[in-house]
């Protein structure tokens, strides 16, 4: 039985893909392993490699019982290859091959395209670990520190997942690409990560929460559409990754939510009603709501860039080839071929922002981005409930998709968060109102003092409602042994 719900720990690399019977891939992965550990030690969480972290490890892919919690030193985390169970008789569900049997091997004609998809997805996984590597030392609590590390080891595992695909299905080129994933570095001038947002810094915890809410949500959308793939191993890999990715969304949404909650609570205690009375709010040692809005503006706009051009030949090719579908493809009621359908795309036409009907096939990125915006809006609405409950008149809003863009239709223009076109001069004069300024950064930085006592939380963030694995409030999530 090569593939099962249970994870085989008899090999050095835990897996449910029968690695013990696949010596070629096992050998390739074992050869890749030291380089990975080396990367983790140099680019992974700084200063906590010897700490015992209360982490969840996957022991099964059964949705009900896949996780096991225990103290683990991160370099000893059992990173493994885990695929969702294989569905018998799964079909290609969209594009020109719709109705054919899903591929268990890479079709030769799509090898380059598939490899590109896997490499781009794979490149984002280690990138975020690199971006977040300094955050441990300013963690606002052991609970948050543990969540950070959980996210980090899981991003590491997602890298493993993509490397497995490269090793198993893409031969020599695949092995070279897998090496490349360990060689690029977030923000490095010479070897940058492939996508822009993954070369930005994550300087503070607020950025981390925003990143996990907005940018990891792009990851979720990408994984959702890759989970639809007619290339079955990719689909199964991504389906399992999504179960882990959900936790990252949780960290982001509750993280920002707890910051909001703490701010509102502090404002009420101090009798401040005006959310724009920034100096007084900041004096309380909490993050003022307008600054949170700016952070959201920044991370939302950077994340939108990850969806690529609104109208994209690559995306159309991926879809038509059956390699990358739409969000919840099989639940959409249409012909899943899109050869004659259109989709409204927001475009810049003669200097005005207009909805234009474009062939649906080339508007796949736009559609996924629209779904992403809806998904983001759900979380933002929940944040607003917290503010509303506190009786403060303030509403967080997603900025217009035209705001602060580097990629796609609106990269050459300036627009306000409301989507109003601005001249260069107007933009320069007003951008500090909408995006975090140096001063805002310095203020957030000033709040970033570590709070490592079990059960205690930094001044600017509330305690969570429930602990991880239902542990009590004073549980020591990380036993820090500093080297």
């Amino acid at each position, binding site marked *: 039985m090569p593939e099962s719900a249970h994870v085989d720990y008899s090999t050095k690399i835990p897996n449910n893909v029968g690695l013990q019977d696949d010596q070629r891939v096992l050998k390739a992965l074992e050869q890749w392993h030291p380089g990975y550990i080396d990367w983790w030690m140099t680019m992974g969480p700084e200063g906590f490699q010897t700490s015992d972290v209360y982490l969840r490890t996957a022991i099964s892919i059964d949705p009900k019982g896949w996780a096991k919690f225990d103290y683990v030193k991160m370099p000893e985390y059992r990173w493994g290859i885990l695929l969702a169970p294989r569905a018998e008789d799964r079909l290609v569900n969209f594009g*020109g091959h719709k109705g054919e049997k899903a591929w268990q091997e890479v079709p030769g004609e799509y090898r*380059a395209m598939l490899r*590109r998809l896997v490499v781009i997805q794979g490149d984002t996984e280690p990138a975020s670990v690199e971006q977040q590597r300094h955050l441990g030392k300013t963690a606002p609590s052991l609970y948050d520190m543990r969540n950070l590390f959980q996210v980090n080891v899981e991003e590491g595992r997602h890298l493993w997942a993509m490397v497995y695909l490269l090793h198993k299905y893409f031969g020599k080129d695949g092995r070279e690409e897998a090496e*490349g994933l360990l*060689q*690029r570095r977030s923000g490095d*001038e*010479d*070897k*940058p990560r*492939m996508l822009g947002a993954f070369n930005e810094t994550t300087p503070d915890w607020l950025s981390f929460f925003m990143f996990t809410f907005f940018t990891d949500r792009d990851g979720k959308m990408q994984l959702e559409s890759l989970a639809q793939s007619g290339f079955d191993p990719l689909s199964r890999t991504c389906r399992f990754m999504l179960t882990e990715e959900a936790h990252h969304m949780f960290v982001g949404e509750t993280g920002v939510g707890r910051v909001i909650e703490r701010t509102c609570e502090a404002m009420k205690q101090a009798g401040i009603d005006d959310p724009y009375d920034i100096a007084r709010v900041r004096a309380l040692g909490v993050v003022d709501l307008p600054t949170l809005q700016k952070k959201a503006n920044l991370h939302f706009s950077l994340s939108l860039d990850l969806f690529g051009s609104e109208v994209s*030949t690559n*995306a*159309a*090719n991926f*879809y*038509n*080839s059956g390699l990358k579908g739409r969000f919840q493809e099989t639940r959409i009621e249409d012909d899943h071929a*899109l*050869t004659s359908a259109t989709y409204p795309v927001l475009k810049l036409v003669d200097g005005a922002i207009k909805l234009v009907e474009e*062939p649906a*096939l*080339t508007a*796949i990125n736009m559609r996924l981005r629209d779904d992403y915006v809806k998904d983001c809006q759900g979380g933002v609405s929940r944040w607003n409930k917290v503010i509303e409950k506190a009786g403060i008149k303030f509403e967080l809003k997603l900025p217009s998709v035209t705001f602060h863009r580097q990629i796609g239709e609106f990269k050459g223009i300036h627009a306000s968060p409301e989507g109003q076109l601005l001249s260069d001069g107007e933009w320069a004069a007003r951008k500090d109102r909408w995006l975090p300024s140096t001063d805002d950064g310095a203020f957030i930085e000033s709040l970033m003092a570590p709070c490592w006592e079990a059960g205690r939380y930094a001044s600017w963030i509330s305690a969570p409602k429930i602990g991880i694995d239902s542990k009590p409030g004073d549980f020591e999530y990380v036993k820090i042994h500093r080297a």
Partner: protein
Amino acid sequence: MPARIDFQTEPSRYRHWKLKVSGSRADLILDVDENGGLFEGYQLKLNSYDLGVDIELADIVQRLRFEHPQIRVVVLQSGKDRVFCAGANIRMLAGATHAHKVNFCKFTNETRNTIEDASETSGQKYLCAIKGTAAGGGYEMALACDHIILADDGNSTVALPELPLLAVLPGTGGLTRVTDKRKVRRDLADAFCTMEEGVRGSRAVKWRLVDQSVPNSKFEAAITRAVQRLTNATARPAETTGIALTPLERTFEHGAIRYSSLDVDIDRSARRATLTIRGPVTAPPATTGDMQAQGASFWPLRLARELDDAILHLRANEPEIGTLVFKSIGESGRVAGHDAFLDANASHWLAGEIQHYWKRVLKRIDLTSRSLVAMIEPGSCFAGTLAEIAFACDRSFMFDGALKGDNRAPAALTLTASNFGSYPMSNGLSRLATRFIGEPESVETARAVVGTPLDASDCERLGLVTSAFDEIDWDDEVRIFLEERASFSSDGLTGMEANLRFAGPETMETKIFGRLTAWQNWIFQRPNAAGAEGALKRYGTGVKATFDPKRV
């Protein structure tokens, strides 16, 4: 579509290129204006180009030689992030007529050759520094340069993705330059040309696709070092000021174009254009200083520019004018005098540039897919450089004797030293050596009569003209020839003429143009590329092309 594609431009009108000149280095930045396409219906995304972009490039390469003779090294880079150049714009190609595509490819090829000619004969070296993707025509532009530096940043690649992506071939000499210039091993070239995503980093160096692969942090320093190396290895006149290539004197009339030394008269019903060249009205200048003072109005340069423009205009804007008849009016002695002046001063930068320019204009004529006919009539001045035009023609007719009551000099043809190597064809031979490929002794016989005006019977005897007719036969013979020519299949003529014009050895240039006209243009017409379900038509829709699997 513009009413007329104009090949004339000048720096203040550039939309796609920026040129910065500093000392002996020029920086040439490709920053294509997406909305600056020559036609409607496409945007020039990702630094892709159309004919308009290339017209500007050709203008720059030309001006660098005439207006900036002190330049030794030209550094070609992209003005855009993460993309060097995506090559010819696919939507433009998909929407263009076949004739436009062919003309476009021909012109871009001529421009790439001009870059190589600048390096080889004028010592203006080109360095291409690639950051981002250089795909298709983007990489072909790099291939025309002397030295290619590729950023080693994990993203920058060179690629010729035409076959896998579009089911066509690279149209600007890519395949030939990969094997014959870069000398890439044939199996690696095969792998490279079927790899949509291209090759990056050290592999690109190992395969000889580029010369250097350099990390971003060392990129500028590597350019500076390479510039230094190229600068030291080449000689250009220092402290020289160039001449201004002033706008052409040119007026478009109904059925005619008038230049200062050339008339183009179009007879649409006969599908024929007559190009009448006017020889110089003065003797050549006494000194090179005088020549430089005359600048762009110096007759050989002025005529070369006018003729070049006329040929390009006819190619692009007059597709149905199938026959070009060349005539001349003037004094042969003065034409020969200008040849002698240029020859005597060939080491002067400007004289040298003018000769090289004439070489390129004559090649442009060789490569024009129209029937080319020379009419050597009384009062004409087919001497030296102008006689070379007659030798470029598919047929030449000479008037034998004088017309009754005509006081013009009888038709004569005069050879000068220029006919024996100053203007090699793309096969590397002179037109006379190509003409007499089976009788090399005839070249020597002709050399013996340099400077002597040759009448019709001399020319017939020496094999310098196709036929000579006297007053009795001339009108009828000429009329019948032209009418017959116009009755043949235009495609058949194009193929036949291109086959017959280039006897002798293959060079990289002949291969490039030969394969362009044969393979590329054939593939471009086939349903697998251009059919309703072909790759060019389907490109960008996401729908896969359907191929007819039969091998031809």
